[in-house]
């Protein structure tokens, strides 16, 4: 059924008819499928154009089932049944990134909404990240509509999880809606309830314009597309806009709404959500969280809440083939256009050659960038083990910020500070013991523990961020058979007894293997890496000692014995061609070796030694 005529007119919509909402859900709890049903029911997508996961654009999103970049879709809806049936409304569904690394982006998306649909799989219950985002939504005073999805599944336990959600949200279990995104059951009722339960946006239509940027996406044809939510006033397509954080003024090339394809409009008014294009080419010029106003009549105060994205995790990215370095630079330059949080600068490593030290919001951000570099740009990369940022205060009061362990200062260190994170783990209560053991082993401090339901527990810890990025998630998953879920957010810094462990091959420090670790773990790190390398580096013509050291103190040692025989016994008439071809192949292989002093180290040894898993033990041990 089409919307009431006159209501759905961008720039002229009564703010009382607008409902801005987002969907908070865990990765595979069915958000995209539910969104598909909404697009169909509101008839904004032609049935012939419909495809699964309509709103997910990037391949990686579709494959991993996660949404990295949000979008806002405008959908007209007329209440079908019950109270106020026949009332027309305009729904703006603002998509939120679903992962822990993008907390700040999530918070901006939430700030653009009055309400949130809390979508939970009726067979699995709520996950830690969803819970974290729910808390974030509640802090932003959003009205929450709890919804259980996948009620068509045989394993669904709607009663059990309705109770869990009701406890969390503070409502009655029967107020929890039940839908199936797959079959569409309950979705029209959900749309009706969104109109009925969520408040309309409130703003001063006469005041100077203020709109909050909640997303900013680079498009190769259009330049940067900026998504905004108008809070006060009115932006028209003829205006020149001003970014309040920088004061930069831009001509508006286009203004419009997404429904779900872009539709140009003359203006956007109070409460409306839409996009604007100014011709800037870099998302850094149009930053999430910033306030847009009109140059001729600027607002006096910004909406607040703007933060510069701050990289929390660093890793060195190096091309396996050194001649790909310019391609890597070009690829990073391209990705940066669409990623205000990605930072990088050139660095060189004695072991790995020329590369870039890159800063990321978190591990997933790192993985996504690495994967895109490899997939979209065809690069073969070695990534050094990720590390956090340390603040080192020297005896003379000088302060050094360390983003690369090999640059840890030499000299008298007074104090070292490491970043910490507040961690939330949700798990069945059977695993409480094992999770506590893991967190304590990682220098965690228990903040609290709550039962969400009879058998599900929420554990809250403070942990050093450096401990989390080193295979914490994998450990958590494997120790809880995959049942635990994790969320973390930065929580300041703490002084800690940290040391730098160097790995030496034949007396030469291999910068790529240096790590900053807690003093109690230094020995363990040293012996683990030395033992791995002993297996990974082929025997050389001479004996190669592998040492782990803190400063000049050796804490672990392994030896690669010298190879004693490397000669083919026979080389007669029929062997010559084959032997020559073998030599040529070996010469090619030699080119892929990295030299550490005189030691030839296969690329595979770096990759395997730097990976946090133990499974990569036998790569590179092939015979020459």
């Amino acid at each position: 059924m089409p919307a009431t005529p006159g209501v759905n007119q961008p720039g002229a919509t009564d703010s009382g008819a607008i409902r801005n909402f987002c969907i908070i859900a865990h990765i595979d709890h069915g958000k995209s499928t539910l969104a598909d049903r909404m697009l169909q029911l509101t008839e904004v997508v032609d049935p012939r154009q419909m495809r699964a996961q309509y709103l997910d654009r990037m391949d990686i999103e579709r494959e991993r089932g996660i949404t990295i970049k949000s979008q806002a879709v405008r959908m007209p809806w007329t209440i079908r049944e019950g109270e106020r049936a026949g009332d027309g409304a305009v729904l703006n569904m603002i998509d939120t990134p679903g992962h822990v690394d993008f907390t700040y982006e999530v918070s901006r998306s939430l700030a653009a909404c009055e309400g949130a649909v809390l979508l939970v799989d009726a067979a699995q219950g709520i996950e830690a990240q969803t819970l974290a985002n729910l808390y974030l939504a509640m802090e932003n005073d959003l009205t929450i509509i709890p919804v259980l999805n996948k009620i068509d599944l045989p394993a669904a336990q709607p009663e059990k999880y309705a109770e869990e959600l009701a406890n969390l949200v503070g409502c009655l279990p029967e107020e929890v809606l039940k839908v199936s995104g797959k079959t569409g059951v309950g979705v029209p009722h959900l749309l009706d309830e969104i109109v009925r339960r969520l408040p309309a946006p409130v703003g001063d239509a006469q005041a100077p314009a203020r709109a909050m940027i909640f997303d900013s996406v680079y498009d190769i044809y259009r330049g940067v597309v900026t998504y905004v939510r108008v809070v006060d006033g009115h932006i028209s397509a003829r205006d020149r806009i001003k970014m309040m954080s920088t004061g930069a003024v831009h001509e508006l090339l286009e203004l419009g709404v997404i429904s779900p394809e872009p539709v140009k409009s003359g203006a956007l008014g109070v409460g409306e959500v839409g996009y604007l294009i100014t011709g800037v080419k870099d998302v850094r010029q149009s930053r999430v969280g910033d306030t847009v106003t009109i140059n001729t009549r600027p607002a006096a105060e910004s909406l607040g809440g703007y933060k510069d994205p701050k990289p929390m995790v660093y890793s060195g990215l190096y091309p396996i083939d050194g001649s790909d370095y310019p391609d890597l630079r070009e690829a990073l330059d391209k990705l940066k256009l669409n990623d205000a949080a990605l930072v990088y600068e050139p660095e060189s490593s004695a072991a790995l050659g020329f590369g870039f030290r890159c800063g990321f919001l978190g591990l997933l951000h790192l993985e996504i960038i690495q994967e895109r570099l490899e997939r979209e740009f065809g690069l073969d990369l070695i990534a050094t083990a990720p590390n956090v940022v340390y603040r080192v205060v020297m005896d003379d009061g000088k302060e050094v910020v360390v983003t690369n362990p090999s640059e840890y200062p030499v000299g008298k260190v007074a104090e070292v500070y490491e970043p910490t994170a507040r961690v939330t783990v949700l798990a069945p209560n059977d695993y409480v013991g094992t999770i506590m053991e893991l967190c304590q082993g990682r220098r965690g401090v228990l903040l609290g523990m709550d039962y969400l339901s009879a058998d599900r527990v929420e554990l809250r810890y403070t942990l050093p961020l450096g401990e989390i990025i080193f295979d914490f998630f994998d450990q958590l998953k494997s120790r809880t058979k995959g049942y635990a879920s994790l969320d973390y957010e930065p929580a300041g810094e703490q002084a800690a007894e940290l040391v730098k462990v160097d790995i030496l091959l034949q007396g030469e420090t291999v910068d790529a293997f240096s790590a900053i670790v807690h003093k109690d773990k230094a020995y363990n790190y040293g012996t683990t890496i030395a033992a791995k390398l002993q297996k990974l580096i082929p025997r050389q013509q001479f004996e190669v000692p592998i040492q782990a050291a803190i400063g000049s103190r050796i804490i672990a040692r392994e030896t690669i014995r010298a190879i004693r025989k490397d000669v083919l016994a026979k080389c007669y008439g029929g062997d010559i061609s084959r032997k020559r071809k073998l030599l040529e192949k070996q010469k090619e292989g030699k080119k892929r070796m990295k030299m550490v002093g005189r030691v030839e180290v296969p690329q595979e040894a770096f990759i395997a030694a730097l990976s946090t898993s133990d499974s990569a033990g036998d790569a590179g041990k092939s015979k020459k």
Partner: protein
Amino acid sequence: MPATLPDGEPMPPTGELPGSALDGAADRPFGVYLHVPFCASRCGYCDFNTYTPTESGLDQTDYVTAALAEIAFARRVLGTDRPVRTVFVGGGTPTLLPPGDLARLLAAIDDAWGLAPDAEVTTEANPESVNPASLKTLREAGFTRISLGMQSTAPHVLRLLERRHTPGRAAEAAQEARAAGFEHVNLDLIYGTPGETAADFDRSLAAAVAAGVDHVSAYSLIVEEGTRLAGRVRRGEVPMPSDDVAADRYLAAETALDAAGLHWYEVSNWAADDAARCAHNLLYWTGGDWWGIGPGAHSHVGGVRWWNVKRPAHYAKLIAEGVSPGAGRELLTGEDRYVEDVMLRLRLASGIALADLRDGGPPAARTALADGLLDPHEYAAGRAVLTLRGRLLADAVIRDLLT
């Protein structure tokens, strides 16, 4: 399963060589290799192109006819007269052919090109396939050198290698050969066989020395893909031979043979004096020309390498039709020839002139010298010659010199 042939370009049916291959041919030594692809049984470690009577699909008489036809074919392709400096009959087990057949084949080579007056004429033999009478016939037919597959004197080693002769038979055959008038006799040894102890190999070395031969070849056992031995290693029935053990055995061979007056002249070959060295093999290692007759045989003439089809019946059919039995060939570039030259000459006690090294070769030679892999006296005299430790790491030194 015999090892596979290299990849190359197709062989022209006429066997015709590019003109450049024959330029200056008269100045290069020329040899003939004759491949006899028959064995009474296949040894478990062997990947040579050889067949038991039931496998071959060609009887021995037809093989001799085909080989004679290829000798005539080769004579036509090469055109000019070239005295044959060396003949080497290998296999397989050449001595499975009646001595009269080997004599006929040698006579045909002599008829085609003419044997040089001091030609070296070698045949390989298994100890159990010769006797005083057959050796006498071979000697009278013009064979000057015999190479016997001794491998080991340890019964359990011979058993694992699936060799048929008894431990004492090889030394006995060597003495019979000397009695029949063979001045040059070689014994082949294999070391590093799983189950072989250091003492086993010392005894094999002592037996070879005691047999009074003037040449010994010693090879580390290689587990070649596709052999029965490889299958047994894969299934874990037999341990993989260890490189460290092979290095120890090699050092033992050098000590025992050198003490007995046999000096290394190639990584795996020791001889009593210059005359005892295998001239035919030296021709392989110094870029000489040779024509390989028989199935799977390789040839080299003036920078062209080619190889015959492997199956005996296929080979015989092609040659009967007057078509080249070549399965493929490669025309070596200047760079290829340089790589081969370094790769082959560095294995020799004569080494390679430092002045002949290109690109990164000279600095790599300096490093190898500093690492004790090249002989300092020879280096001072302008040659790169491997030390004993260098011989064990010859492939690594070759790779370095070619960077």
